[in-house]
Protein backbone atom coordinates (compact mmCIF):
# COMPACT_ATOMS: atom_id res chain seq x y z
CA UNK A 1 0.00 0.00 0.00
CA UNK A 2 2.83 2.35 0.90
CA UNK A 3 4.40 1.91 -2.52
CA UNK A 4 1.14 2.79 -4.27
CA UNK A 5 0.74 5.85 -2.07
CA UNK A 6 4.30 6.93 -2.90
CA UNK A 7 3.67 6.39 -6.61
CA UNK A 8 0.48 8.47 -6.45
CA UNK A 9 2.37 11.32 -4.76
CA UNK A 10 5.24 11.18 -7.26
CA UNK A 11 2.82 11.07 -10.18
CA UNK A 12 0.91 14.07 -8.86
CA UNK A 13 4.10 16.16 -8.68
CA UNK A 14 5.22 14.91 -12.09
CA UNK A 15 1.82 15.76 -13.54
CA UNK A 16 2.14 19.40 -12.48
CA UNK A 17 5.70 19.64 -13.83
CA UNK A 18 4.57 18.27 -17.20
CA UNK A 19 1.44 20.46 -17.12
CA UNK A 20 3.61 23.55 -16.65
CA UNK A 21 5.79 22.64 -19.63
CA UNK A 22 2.77 21.77 -21.77
CA UNK A 23 0.93 25.02 -20.98
CA UNK A 24 4.12 26.90 -21.80
CA UNK A 25 4.32 25.03 -25.12
CA UNK A 26 0.76 26.22 -25.81
CA UNK A 27 1.86 29.79 -25.22
CA UNK A 28 0.25 30.23 -21.79
CA UNK A 29 2.18 32.47 -19.41
CA UNK A 30 5.48 34.17 -19.97
CA UNK A 31 8.94 32.74 -20.26
CA UNK A 32 9.89 29.49 -18.56
CA UNK A 33 11.25 29.99 -15.07
CA UNK A 34 14.43 28.03 -15.46
CA UNK A 35 17.13 29.45 -13.19
CA UNK A 36 20.52 28.67 -14.67
CA UNK A 37 19.32 25.98 -17.07
CA UNK A 38 18.66 26.23 -20.78
CA UNK A 39 14.96 25.38 -20.79
CA UNK A 40 14.03 27.55 -23.78
CA UNK A 41 16.73 25.96 -25.92
CA UNK A 42 15.30 22.54 -25.14
CA UNK A 43 11.66 23.57 -25.39
CA UNK A 44 12.09 25.30 -28.74
CA UNK A 45 14.25 22.58 -30.27
CA UNK A 46 12.72 20.30 -32.86
CA UNK A 47 12.90 17.49 -30.33
CA UNK A 48 10.29 19.21 -28.17
CA UNK A 49 7.65 17.79 -30.51
CA UNK A 50 7.08 14.05 -30.86
CA UNK A 51 4.64 12.65 -33.43
CA UNK A 52 3.20 16.10 -33.93
CA UNK A 53 2.46 16.72 -30.26
CA UNK A 54 4.47 18.58 -27.62
CA UNK A 55 6.61 16.14 -25.64
CA UNK A 56 5.25 17.65 -22.41
CA UNK A 57 1.75 16.46 -23.37
CA UNK A 58 2.97 12.85 -23.22
CA UNK A 59 4.20 13.64 -19.73
CA UNK A 60 0.83 15.08 -18.71
CA UNK A 61 -1.04 12.03 -20.00
CA UNK A 62 1.52 9.56 -18.64
CA UNK A 63 1.64 10.98 -15.13
CA UNK A 64 -2.13 11.32 -15.03
CA UNK A 65 -2.49 7.69 -16.03
CA UNK A 66 -0.02 6.52 -13.38
CA UNK A 67 -1.74 8.69 -10.78
CA UNK A 68 -5.21 7.34 -11.59
CA UNK A 69 -3.99 3.73 -11.61
CA UNK A 70 -2.21 4.22 -8.28
CA UNK A 71 -5.30 5.76 -6.66
CA UNK A 72 -7.58 3.05 -8.05
CA UNK A 73 -5.13 0.44 -6.75
CA UNK A 74 -5.45 1.97 -3.28
CA UNK A 75 -9.10 0.96 -3.00
CA UNK A 76 -9.49 -1.60 -0.20
CA UNK A 77 -10.78 -4.17 -2.69
CA UNK A 78 -7.69 -3.74 -4.89
CA UNK A 79 -5.05 -3.72 -2.19
CA UNK A 80 -4.46 -7.45 -2.32
CA UNK A 81 -4.35 -7.60 -6.12
CA UNK A 82 -0.77 -7.75 -7.34
CA UNK A 83 -1.67 -7.07 -10.95
CA UNK A 84 -1.88 -3.37 -10.08
CA UNK A 85 1.77 -3.44 -9.08
CA UNK A 86 2.61 -5.00 -12.44
CA UNK A 87 0.55 -2.37 -14.26
CA UNK A 88 2.26 0.48 -12.38
CA UNK A 89 5.68 -1.06 -13.04
CA UNK A 90 4.81 -1.37 -16.75
CA UNK A 91 3.59 2.22 -17.06
CA UNK A 92 6.55 3.65 -15.19
CA UNK A 93 8.95 1.57 -17.29
CA UNK A 94 7.53 3.14 -20.45
CA UNK A 95 7.90 6.55 -18.78
CA UNK A 96 11.46 5.94 -17.67
CA UNK A 97 12.50 4.71 -21.14
CA UNK A 98 10.91 7.73 -22.83
CA UNK A 99 12.64 10.00 -20.31
CA UNK A 100 15.99 8.27 -20.88
CA UNK A 101 15.67 8.97 -24.61
CA UNK A 102 14.79 12.63 -23.94
CA UNK A 103 17.71 13.01 -21.53
CA UNK A 104 20.04 11.51 -24.14
CA UNK A 105 18.79 14.11 -26.64
CA UNK A 106 19.36 16.92 -24.15
CA UNK A 107 22.89 15.83 -23.33
CA UNK A 108 24.21 14.68 -26.69
CA UNK A 109 22.07 16.25 -29.42
CA UNK A 110 20.65 19.55 -28.14
CA UNK A 111 23.57 20.12 -25.74
CA UNK A 112 21.33 21.92 -23.29
CA UNK A 113 19.69 20.92 -20.05
CA UNK A 114 16.21 21.93 -18.91
CA UNK A 115 15.83 21.86 -15.16
CA UNK A 116 12.15 20.97 -15.37
CA UNK A 117 13.02 18.00 -17.57
CA UNK A 118 15.65 16.89 -15.07
CA UNK A 119 13.03 17.24 -12.32
CA UNK A 120 10.62 15.09 -14.29
CA UNK A 121 13.38 12.54 -14.95
CA UNK A 122 14.06 12.26 -11.21
CA UNK A 123 10.34 11.85 -10.47
CA UNK A 124 9.73 9.13 -13.06
CA UNK A 125 12.90 7.30 -12.02
CA UNK A 126 11.81 7.36 -8.37
CA UNK A 127 8.35 6.14 -9.44
CA UNK A 128 9.89 3.33 -11.45
CA UNK A 129 12.17 2.22 -8.59
CA UNK A 130 9.25 2.10 -6.15
CA UNK A 131 7.06 0.31 -8.69
CA UNK A 132 9.70 -2.32 -9.47
CA UNK A 133 10.50 -2.89 -5.79
CA UNK A 134 6.80 -3.34 -5.09
CA UNK A 135 6.82 -6.32 -7.47
CA UNK A 136 9.24 -8.06 -5.15
CA UNK A 137 7.41 -7.29 -1.93
CA UNK A 138 5.10 -10.01 -0.61
CA UNK A 139 1.44 -9.75 -1.45
CA UNK A 140 -0.90 -8.43 1.14
CA UNK A 141 -2.33 -11.52 2.69
CA UNK A 142 -6.05 -11.83 2.99
CA UNK A 143 -6.23 -15.59 3.35
CA UNK A 144 -7.24 -16.22 6.97
CA UNK A 145 -5.23 -19.43 6.98
CA UNK A 146 -2.10 -17.68 5.90
CA UNK A 147 -2.63 -14.67 8.08
CA UNK A 148 -4.58 -15.78 11.11
CA UNK A 149 -6.79 -13.24 12.74
CA UNK A 150 -6.75 -13.12 16.55
CA UNK A 151 -9.19 -15.61 17.92
CA UNK A 152 -10.66 -16.04 21.31
CA UNK A 153 -8.52 -18.50 23.15
CA UNK A 154 -10.28 -21.26 24.99
CA UNK A 155 -10.41 -20.63 28.64
Amino acid at each position, binding site marked *: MRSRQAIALFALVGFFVALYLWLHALGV*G*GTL*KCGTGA*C*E*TVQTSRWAVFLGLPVALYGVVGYLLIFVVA*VVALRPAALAERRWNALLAGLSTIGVLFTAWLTYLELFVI*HAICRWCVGSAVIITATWIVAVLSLRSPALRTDPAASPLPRDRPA
Partner: protein
Amino acid sequence: MNRFYVVLAVLAVVLGITLFVLLRPSSGAAKAAAGPPPSVVDDGFRGYTLGVGDPVVEITEYSDFECPFCANFATIQMPTIKEQLINTGKVRWRFRDFPLPSHRYSRYAAHAAQCAGEQGKFWDMHDQLFYHHQWAQTGKDPSALFRDFAKTIGLDPQRYEACMTAGRFASRIEFSRQEGDRLLVNGTPTFFINGKMFNGSRATSDTFKAIADSIIAHTPPAPRAPAHH
Protein backbone atom coordinates in the same frame (compact mmCIF):
# COMPACT_ATOMS: atom_id res chain seq x y z
CA MET B 1 -6.00 5.91 4.50
CA ASN B 2 -8.15 9.03 4.82
CA ARG B 3 -5.13 10.95 6.02
CA PHE B 4 -3.34 10.01 2.82
CA TYR B 5 -6.10 11.54 0.68
CA VAL B 6 -5.93 14.72 2.74
CA VAL B 7 -2.16 14.87 2.05
CA LEU B 8 -2.86 14.25 -1.64
CA ALA B 9 -5.46 17.05 -1.76
CA VAL B 10 -3.22 19.52 0.08
CA LEU B 11 -0.33 18.69 -2.26
CA ALA B 12 -2.57 19.19 -5.31
CA VAL B 13 -3.65 22.61 -4.03
CA VAL B 14 -0.06 23.67 -3.28
CA LEU B 15 1.11 22.52 -6.71
CA GLY B 16 -1.84 24.25 -8.39
CA ILE B 17 -1.01 27.55 -6.69
CA THR B 18 2.67 27.13 -7.64
CA LEU B 19 1.67 26.52 -11.25
CA PHE B 20 -0.51 29.64 -11.25
CA VAL B 21 2.39 31.73 -9.94
CA LEU B 22 4.81 30.24 -12.48
CA LEU B 23 2.46 30.97 -15.36
CA ARG B 24 2.02 34.64 -14.54
CA PRO B 25 3.48 36.65 -17.42
CA SER B 26 6.93 37.98 -16.65
CA SER B 27 8.39 41.26 -17.76
CA GLY B 28 9.46 39.55 -21.01
CA ALA B 29 11.39 41.16 -23.79
CA ALA B 30 12.79 44.48 -22.62
CA LYS B 31 10.84 47.23 -24.34
CA ALA B 32 13.92 49.33 -24.89
CA ALA B 33 15.52 46.56 -26.96
CA ALA B 34 12.34 45.38 -28.66
CA GLY B 35 11.09 48.64 -30.10
CA PRO B 36 12.37 51.61 -32.07
CA PRO B 37 14.27 54.24 -30.07
CA PRO B 38 12.85 57.69 -29.37
CA SER B 39 15.70 59.30 -31.31
CA VAL B 40 18.35 58.07 -33.74
CA VAL B 41 22.01 58.89 -33.41
CA ASP B 42 24.77 57.90 -35.83
CA ASP B 43 27.46 56.26 -33.70
CA GLY B 44 29.66 55.73 -36.75
CA PHE B 45 29.06 51.99 -36.75
CA ARG B 46 28.58 50.47 -40.21
CA GLY B 47 28.04 46.81 -39.48
CA TYR B 48 30.06 43.80 -38.41
CA THR B 49 32.22 42.33 -41.13
CA LEU B 50 33.81 39.04 -42.09
CA GLY B 51 36.83 38.76 -44.31
CA VAL B 52 40.58 38.66 -44.50
CA GLY B 53 43.05 40.93 -46.24
CA ASP B 54 41.85 43.69 -48.53
CA PRO B 55 39.39 42.11 -50.94
CA VAL B 56 38.20 43.96 -54.04
CA VAL B 57 34.64 42.75 -53.52
CA GLU B 58 32.49 43.87 -50.61
CA ILE B 59 29.02 42.47 -50.13
CA THR B 60 26.68 44.17 -47.71
CA GLU B 61 23.70 42.19 -46.53
CA TYR B 62 20.57 43.88 -45.14
CA SER B 63 18.99 41.22 -43.02
CA ASP B 64 16.27 40.56 -40.50
CA PHE B 65 16.83 37.88 -37.86
CA GLU B 66 13.17 36.86 -37.87
CA CYS B 67 12.98 36.50 -41.65
CA PRO B 68 12.86 32.87 -42.85
CA PHE B 69 14.66 33.64 -46.14
CA CYS B 70 17.48 35.24 -44.16
CA ALA B 71 17.69 32.16 -41.94
CA ASN B 72 17.80 29.88 -44.97
CA PHE B 73 20.48 32.02 -46.52
CA ALA B 74 22.55 32.11 -43.32
CA THR B 75 22.35 28.38 -42.72
CA ILE B 76 22.43 26.99 -46.26
CA GLN B 77 24.35 29.41 -48.48
CA MET B 78 26.56 31.25 -46.03
CA PRO B 79 28.79 28.31 -44.99
CA THR B 80 29.83 27.81 -48.63
CA ILE B 81 30.24 31.54 -49.18
CA LYS B 82 32.48 31.68 -46.13
CA GLU B 83 34.55 28.78 -47.34
CA GLN B 84 34.85 29.83 -51.00
CA LEU B 85 34.80 33.61 -50.89
CA ILE B 86 35.32 35.05 -47.41
CA ASN B 87 38.05 32.80 -46.00
CA THR B 88 39.92 32.93 -49.32
CA GLY B 89 40.18 36.71 -49.16
CA LYS B 90 37.99 37.33 -52.20
CA VAL B 91 35.08 38.99 -50.43
CA ARG B 92 34.44 41.08 -47.36
CA TRP B 93 30.95 40.45 -45.96
CA ARG B 94 29.14 43.21 -44.08
CA PHE B 95 26.00 42.65 -42.04
CA ARG B 96 23.44 45.43 -41.65
CA ASP B 97 20.21 45.26 -39.68
CA PHE B 98 16.96 45.79 -41.49
CA PRO B 99 14.24 44.72 -39.03
CA LEU B 100 10.93 44.53 -40.85
CA PRO B 101 7.95 46.10 -39.08
CA SER B 102 5.88 42.96 -39.64
CA HIS B 103 8.21 40.95 -37.41
CA ARG B 104 7.51 41.28 -33.73
CA TYR B 105 10.87 40.26 -32.32
CA SER B 106 13.34 41.07 -35.09
CA ARG B 107 14.54 44.27 -33.43
CA TYR B 108 14.93 42.39 -30.19
CA ALA B 109 16.96 39.70 -31.95
CA ALA B 110 19.07 42.32 -33.70
CA HIS B 111 19.65 43.87 -30.32
CA ALA B 112 20.72 40.56 -28.81
CA ALA B 113 23.26 40.22 -31.63
CA GLN B 114 24.55 43.75 -31.01
CA CYS B 115 24.86 43.08 -27.28
CA ALA B 116 26.83 39.95 -28.14
CA GLY B 117 28.91 42.06 -30.52
CA GLU B 118 29.72 44.37 -27.63
CA GLN B 119 31.44 41.35 -26.08
CA GLY B 120 33.12 40.39 -29.35
CA LYS B 121 30.66 37.63 -30.26
CA PHE B 122 28.32 39.14 -32.83
CA TRP B 123 28.77 36.31 -35.36
CA ASP B 124 28.30 33.64 -32.69
CA MET B 125 24.96 35.17 -31.73
CA HIS B 126 24.12 35.67 -35.42
CA ASP B 127 24.58 31.92 -35.89
CA GLN B 128 22.59 31.03 -32.77
CA LEU B 129 19.68 33.17 -33.92
CA PHE B 130 19.62 31.74 -37.42
CA TYR B 131 20.50 28.12 -36.68
CA HIS B 132 17.84 27.84 -33.95
CA HIS B 133 15.23 29.70 -35.91
CA GLN B 134 12.24 27.89 -34.38
CA TRP B 135 11.84 30.87 -32.05
CA ALA B 136 10.75 32.97 -35.02
CA GLN B 137 7.87 30.64 -35.81
CA THR B 138 6.36 30.35 -32.36
CA GLY B 139 5.48 34.02 -31.82
CA LYS B 140 6.43 33.58 -28.18
CA ASP B 141 8.58 35.94 -26.17
CA PRO B 142 12.14 34.78 -27.00
CA SER B 143 13.96 36.69 -24.25
CA ALA B 144 14.73 33.60 -22.16
CA LEU B 145 15.87 31.68 -25.24
CA PHE B 146 18.19 34.49 -26.25
CA ARG B 147 19.55 34.46 -22.71
CA ASP B 148 20.28 30.77 -23.25
CA PHE B 149 22.05 31.63 -26.51
CA ALA B 150 24.10 34.23 -24.66
CA LYS B 151 25.14 31.58 -22.13
CA THR B 152 25.89 29.06 -24.87
CA ILE B 153 28.30 31.38 -26.67
CA GLY B 154 29.96 32.39 -23.42
CA LEU B 155 28.76 35.96 -22.93
CA ASP B 156 28.99 37.62 -19.55
CA PRO B 157 25.30 37.26 -18.60
CA GLN B 158 25.18 40.39 -16.47
CA ARG B 159 26.66 42.58 -19.19
CA TYR B 160 24.31 41.02 -21.75
CA GLU B 161 21.31 41.60 -19.49
CA ALA B 162 22.27 45.19 -18.75
CA CYS B 163 22.77 45.86 -22.46
CA MET B 164 19.37 44.42 -23.37
CA THR B 165 17.51 46.15 -20.55
CA ALA B 166 19.03 49.51 -21.46
CA GLY B 167 18.35 49.01 -25.18
CA ARG B 168 21.90 50.23 -25.71
CA PHE B 169 21.96 49.61 -29.43
CA ALA B 170 18.36 50.40 -30.35
CA SER B 171 19.48 53.63 -32.01
CA ARG B 172 22.22 51.86 -33.98
CA ILE B 173 19.71 49.31 -35.29
CA GLU B 174 17.23 52.00 -36.29
CA PHE B 175 20.02 53.94 -38.00
CA SER B 176 20.84 50.84 -40.04
CA ARG B 177 17.17 50.38 -40.94
CA GLN B 178 16.85 54.00 -42.04
CA GLU B 179 20.02 53.61 -44.07
CA GLY B 180 18.38 50.61 -45.78
CA ASP B 181 15.29 52.72 -46.43
CA ARG B 182 17.40 55.39 -48.10
CA LEU B 183 19.00 52.70 -50.27
CA LEU B 184 15.51 51.48 -51.25
CA VAL B 185 15.79 48.15 -49.48
CA ASN B 186 12.27 46.77 -49.43
CA GLY B 187 12.77 43.19 -48.35
CA THR B 188 15.26 40.88 -46.73
CA PRO B 189 17.81 39.71 -47.43
CA THR B 190 18.91 42.44 -49.83
CA PHE B 191 22.53 42.60 -50.93
CA PHE B 192 24.77 45.35 -52.21
CA ILE B 193 27.79 44.14 -54.16
CA ASN B 194 30.39 46.89 -54.21
CA GLY B 195 27.57 49.32 -53.54
CA LYS B 196 25.27 48.08 -56.28
CA MET B 197 21.95 46.57 -55.22
CA PHE B 198 21.52 42.88 -55.88
CA ASN B 199 18.08 41.67 -54.94
CA GLY B 200 19.00 38.02 -54.70
CA SER B 201 16.94 36.90 -51.75
CA ARG B 202 17.01 33.36 -53.17
CA ALA B 203 20.47 33.54 -54.71
CA THR B 204 22.81 30.66 -54.02
CA SER B 205 26.46 30.65 -53.08
CA ASP B 206 27.24 29.82 -56.73
CA THR B 207 25.61 33.09 -57.82
CA PHE B 208 27.76 35.10 -55.44
CA LYS B 209 30.86 33.18 -56.48
CA ALA B 210 30.17 33.86 -60.15
CA ILE B 211 29.65 37.58 -59.50
CA ALA B 212 32.70 37.89 -57.24
CA ASP B 213 34.93 35.97 -59.66
CA SER B 214 33.70 38.16 -62.51
CA ILE B 215 34.47 41.38 -60.59
CA ILE B 216 37.90 40.08 -59.61
CA ALA B 217 38.66 39.04 -63.21
CA HIS B 218 37.74 42.51 -64.47
CA THR B 219 39.61 44.41 -61.79
CA PRO B 220 43.07 45.51 -62.85
CA PRO B 221 45.75 44.39 -60.41
CA ALA B 222 46.84 46.97 -57.89
CA PRO B 223 49.94 48.83 -59.07
CA ARG B 224 53.10 47.42 -57.59
CA ALA B 225 55.49 49.63 -55.70
CA PRO B 226 58.33 50.76 -58.00
CA ALA B 227 61.40 48.63 -57.69
CA HIS B 228 64.48 50.34 -56.33
CA HIS B 229 67.79 49.76 -58.06
